[in-house]
């Protein structure tokens, strides 16, 4: 096969933005990039078995990739980077104060593939989990049955940094708290999907899923033809969910996306979603509250706002409510929310549901609220607040992964088997000082997918963040954001820690 046709000349920015590649080893054009590929020991590789043969169900999907030689792959990879930069598909890193603030999220051209037959149970499992988490929030901010019955300990809930007691008794429109969930999944050494983490506050990353697909179609238009599930529906589904929860009695609801502004690292995504949904992208200063109703400042005077997809954390949402120093929020917003005059997507106080120390109780929630057994497994978790668990954790730090319950983005994390003695000692002190802030889990050997590196195609670990959108019913995006740890041997996939991403294919099984 020859290289796919290019629809575009490389942009003028290419020369300066192309990632440095290692000195090229002379490899003939068309040579199989997977030759010599080695799966990691005791780890599930999603393309190849231990002997290096492709999994039979994926063989035909992988085949075309073999025919692109290394130089061609490098060229396409550069083309993709240049296109992301030109299109402004970037995340901003202003905090570091050096270099260009706009970076692209490294993109790997080898897709991650999940078969439709495997995906179906994942999909059901996610819908079930989100339903239980939503019921939990309704309960915790309502009658608190689950606490009265002792199925989830009251002190774990009340000590959670995401718990907002002031929200008790306030029913969000339609009873929906979790309109958008990003549930992180991993595959263990047997290839089973496990829930690693719930994100039900303001999960980000979905724009990269859509942009990665656009890029994939552009640089490798011939692959996966017709068998890959489309992801393009997402903005429509999100808009429908927003419409469904709008507390509106007059015509078409006015929905907006609320962003902290262009300095936020996910600003591209906020604009992207606003554009695709045909909504206004607003900042706090574009809105004001009068008579417990929210209005936007427009070129024709005030305009009523009914639904806000907010990408601002609870704490900063309303300076009257939590952080008086917040300049990105809207004074009075939560009064309007409490009065039922505006829907917030996601709800306020969701942090208690994705607290890492509440996570171990989610299977119990599924049984309690839904009367079902959990469809998806999760990772065993030690809660450092509990005496027995803490004792075990402190004695076995070098075997465990420790996570701070309130942190995200791969910060505040100890990977015991790969940590230095000093790091372990430091975590030991921190855990002893504030046990509620930590949980620990055994290290999961995250599955791997072949990935381009400076020294050819190698096995790199991945996770998966599918997105679940809920209005009057739940919808799961097929696939999701696959993040890949580009650093050799690393288990940490976060973009802030050297992670990249891949296009994720939910592939129809062959007949």
């Amino acid at each position: 096969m020859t290289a796919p046709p290019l629809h575009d000349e490389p942009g003028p920015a290419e020369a300066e933005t192309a990632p440095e590649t290692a000195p090229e080893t002379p490899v003939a054009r068309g040579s199989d990039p997977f030759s010599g590929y080695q799966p990691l020991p005791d780890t599930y590789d999603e393309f190849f078995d231990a002997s290096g043969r492709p999994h039979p169900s994926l063989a035909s999907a992988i085949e075309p990739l073999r025919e692109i030689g290394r130089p061609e792959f490098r060229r396409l990879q550069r083309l993709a980077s240049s296109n992301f930069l030109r299109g402004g598909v970037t995340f901003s890193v202003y905090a570091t104060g050096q270099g260009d603030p706009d970076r692209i999220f490294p993109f790997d051209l080898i897709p991650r593939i999940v078969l439709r037959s495997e995906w179906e149970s994942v999909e059901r499992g996610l819908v079930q989990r989100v339903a239980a988490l939503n019921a939990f929030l309704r309960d915790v901010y309502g009658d608190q049955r689950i606490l009265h019955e002792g199925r989830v300990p009251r002190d774990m809930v009340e000590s959670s940094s995401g718990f907002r007691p002031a929200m008790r008794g306030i029913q969000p429109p339609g009873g929906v708290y979790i309109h958008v969930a990003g549930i992180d999944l991993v595959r263990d050494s047997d290839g089973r999907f496990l829930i690693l983490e719930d994100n039900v506050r303001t999960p980000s990353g979905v724009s990269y899923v859509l942009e990665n697909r656009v890029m994939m179609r552009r640089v490798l238009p011939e692959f996966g033809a017709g068998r890959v599930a489309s992801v393009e529906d997402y903005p429509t589904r999100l808009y429908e969910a927003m419409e469904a929860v709008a507390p509106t009695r007059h015509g078409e609801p006015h929905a907006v996306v609320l962003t902290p502004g262009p300095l936020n690292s996910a600003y591209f995504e906020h604009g992207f979603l606003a554009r695709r949904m045909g909504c206004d992208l607003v900042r706090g200063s574009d809105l004001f509250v009068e008579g417990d109703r929210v209005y936007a400042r427009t070129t024709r005077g005030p305009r009523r706002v009914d639904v806000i997809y907010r990408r601002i954390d609870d704490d900063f949402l309303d300076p009257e409510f939590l952080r008086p120093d917040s300049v990105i929020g809207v004074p009075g917003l939560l009064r309007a929310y409490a009065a039922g005059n505006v829907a917030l997507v996601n709800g306020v106080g969701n942090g208690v549901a994705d607290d890492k120390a509440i996570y171990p109780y989610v299977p119990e929630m599924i049984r309690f609220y839904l009367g079902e057994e959990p469809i998806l497994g999760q990772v065993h978790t030690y809660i450092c607040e509990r005496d027995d668990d803490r004792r075990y954790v402190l004695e076995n730090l070098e075997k465990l992964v420790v996570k701070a319950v309130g942190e995200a983005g791969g910060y505040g994390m100890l990977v015991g088997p790969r940590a230095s003695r000093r790091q372990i000692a430091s975590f030991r002190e921190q855990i002893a000082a504030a046990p509620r802030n930590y949980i620990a889990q055994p290290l999961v050997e995250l599955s791997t997918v072949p990935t381009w590196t400076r020294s050819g195609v190698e096995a790199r670990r991945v996770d998966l963040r599918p997105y679940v959108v809920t209005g009057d019913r739940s919808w799961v995006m097929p696939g999701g954001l696959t993040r890949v740890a580009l650093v050799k041997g690393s288990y940490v996939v976060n973009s802030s820690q050297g992670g990249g991403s891949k296009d994720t294919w939910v592939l129809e099984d062959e007949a």
Partner: protein
Amino acid sequence: MISRVAEGCFWLTRYLERTETLARLLDVHHALHIDTGVPIQNRWRMLLEFTGREDDFAERYGEDAHCDGELVQEFLTWDEEHPASLYGSLRGARENARTVRETMSLEAWKAINDLWLWLKGPDSRRLYQRERGAFYERVTRSAYLFHGVSFGTMLHDEPFTFMKLGRALERAGSTARILRAHAALNGHEASDAEAAASCLAVLRCCCAYDPFFLSGMHPLGMRTVIRFLLFDHTLPRSVIYNLDEGRRLLFLLCQHDPIGLPRRSRSVLERLRGGLMQMDVRDVEQQGLKKTLAWTIEATDHLCDAIHDDFLAAPTPWLRHCVRALALTEGSLENRGWAA
């Protein structure tokens, strides 16, 4: 549309227009040959005068440094600190574009982002050193590309109208400023050759060289040039053309206004435009070109302020007042666009 976003659209094209105008001015003055007779010291001073940065420059490089063409070009092109340099104004355009990206087409965004990425990268500097004219031309052409691409790929609705409005008012102002800067440096003692060269340079700065001769304006002289650049209704960079355009755009923007919404900008524009329409070139000469231009420039700035108050940053107490007024008659007004 959201006022802040409208403001971003308005300023995006104003900054881009500044970038383009400055690039053209630098190109024209760089290419003024010996035989045009413009004294070398005036050639570059005019540019500093135009950007209002004479003092700034003198302070940094000394009183006589304005004779050093390389230095002036470097200063006006690359100064990263100042928003009036070519680099600074393109950054302003691109920053505004980033904050209104959701209203733009991908093609329009790329047109401006590509130019910015290029200017920021090493290729632009190389071209600047090797082939100055080509460097400036690349900038002006990219701006034309943006105008064409946005016209061809964006919805012709409010955001685009604000972009056009920003561009029209910026053009009106910069044509007046170009005339003023030349007038300031070509006093009565200028020789005929100098005056002719200066006229041609002014025309080139306003993309009006060919149009001037095509329009049958003659003889070439300051009087005909002023008449052309101030009063010609068909020249896209004349002052009056852009006020006509501004008037049309303001009409479009106010078309669906609820009754009673005050729009000061429309009357400010009518006064400015009406004032110019009543004049002809003899009146200008009578009251002095400098005075007329100063009045035009000031009135244009004033118009931009009025647009700001009307559309882009209405004061909060006034907005709250609107809401309260609305509450009294809720329902009847909700359907008329006030608070739907």
